[in-house]
């Protein structure tokens, strides 16, 4: 493939949305992982603890989101 072809292919990746509408909820996982890693990389003095600390925060955020989702679902069910 020519360099121009590579550039066109790379540009094409950013000019149209990816067809992932049916999997949108799974896209939250890399987002939460990214937030956990960056937050802990800033917070921790000793970066050797980063993998476990980031994983711990990742699980905490997911659990809190599940809890919030369950609570909102319950409110909607009770209201309807």
């Amino acid at each position, binding site marked *: 493939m020519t360099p121009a072809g590579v550039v066109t292919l790379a540009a094409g990746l950013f*000019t149209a949305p990816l067809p*992932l509408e049916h999997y949108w909820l799974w896209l939250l996982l890399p987002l939460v992982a990214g937030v956990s*890693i*960056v937050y802990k990389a800033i917070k921790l003095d000793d*970066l050797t603890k980063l993998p476990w600390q980031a994983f711990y925060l990742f699980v905490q955020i997911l659990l809190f989101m599940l809890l919030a989702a369950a609570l909102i679902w319950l409110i909607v069910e009770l209201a309807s």
Partner: protein
Amino acid sequence: MPVAQPPSTRVRPASRWHFIAAVATWLLPGLGHLLLGQRARGWIIGVTILCLWGGGLALGGVSVIDWSRQRAWFLGQMLIAPSIAVAWQHDRLKARYLLTRGPQPAREGEPEPAFEPAYGRMAEMGTLYTALAGMLNLLAMIDVIYRDPRPKDKSKPQLAGEPA
């Protein structure tokens, strides 16, 4: 009479160099930490934020960064400088598309538009990814301003009452 603060609560004034490093972080996430000598931290922060930002652009395309229609989200997105270039490019493509054809869809035989706008979930996720990447970069900028680049001296004896 001024009251002396304990060492743990004393805030060191940020130098001009730290502000330059913060601007570098705005231009390219992680660069400020690299300039301060925090190489591992800089790489981790930079690669993660750029993956989130690039991932958001890949999910929704350039149309997720739109300062004319999503001003509130753009405030978050512009905390990474390349977002401004993407917004400018998006505006340029949109203007060229509207100038040549108008808002009606493409007819047969006409060239395809330079970009395809995102709608629904993909637009939401792309916007969320890019805006969150920008806000994480703001945290990195604040960290660069106040971070002491000197490594902590572990051989120094611990004083009574001083935090570890």
